[in-house]
């Protein structure tokens, strides 16, 4: 059902949105685990890293993008929680066509590189190549935004 001229949306929110979500995540972590709890350091790193990715996914649009959906779903599974996803009204991308799969519709060298990309982008495994690229563009922007936020935080916290 994808129209030939569908608009590619790569809008990414401002840095503040990412910062806010991340700080909120961090503060939730602190209330759950007081600083002096016997957590091992590596567990704390893992928790903070996870908080970073989850807050990034939320800031980027939560369940409205395929990659953030996949990321949040993966994180919820890790926590053994179930996340409520609202039904998307829009048609889902990965519909199974009745046509035979044309494996050489694109040059094999492109598909090969796309395969590596699929392993890196959350939810990439189920995406058709053109959708994958759209999601990747958005993912990259959000990821670099999140990294900037974390860098600012680290810079602000580091002793002068």
């Amino acid at each position: 059902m994808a129209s030939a001229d569908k608009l590619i949306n790569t809008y990414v929110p401002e840095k503040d949105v990412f910062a806010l979500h991340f700080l909120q995540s961090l503060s939730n972590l602190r209330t759950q685990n007081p600083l002096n709890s016997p957590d091992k350091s590596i567990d704390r790193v893992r928790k903070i890293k996870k908080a970073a990715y989850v807050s990034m996914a939320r800031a980027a649009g939560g369940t409205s993008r395929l990659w953030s959906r996949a990321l949040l779903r993966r994180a919820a599974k890790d926590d053994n929680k179930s996340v409520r996803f609202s039904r998307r009204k829009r048609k889902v991308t990965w519909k199974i066509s009745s046509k035979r799969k044309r494996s050489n519709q694109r040059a094999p060298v492109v598909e090969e590189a796309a395969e590596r990309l699929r392993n890196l982008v959350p939810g990439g495994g189920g995406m058709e190549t053109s959708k994958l690229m759209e999601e990747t563009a958005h993912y990259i922007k959000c990821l670099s935004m999140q990294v900037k936020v974390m860098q600012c935080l680290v810079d602000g916290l580091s002793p002068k």
Partner: protein
Amino acid sequence: MSSSRRSSQASSSSRISDDQITDLISKLRQSIPEIRQNRRSNTVSASKVLQETCNYIRNLNKEADDLSDRLTQLLESIDPNSPQAAVIRSLING
């Protein structure tokens, strides 16, 4: 993590033309700082762009890892009376 793989690979969007692929790739290219404009054929530059993208994502993940590390250390060792702690407190509670 097991995401559904090729079993649900849709070929119904195979009608997307090469023009659109080019357009998408140029959009992707704009998101990556290192890519230079490449005058070579579509196929070759496409796979190069995708490769650069993979590298870029891996770098970002690595940076996020390192920053998580440092952030954890800083948060653990922060002196509650320092100005930094006050900043954090105000940010988190504000």
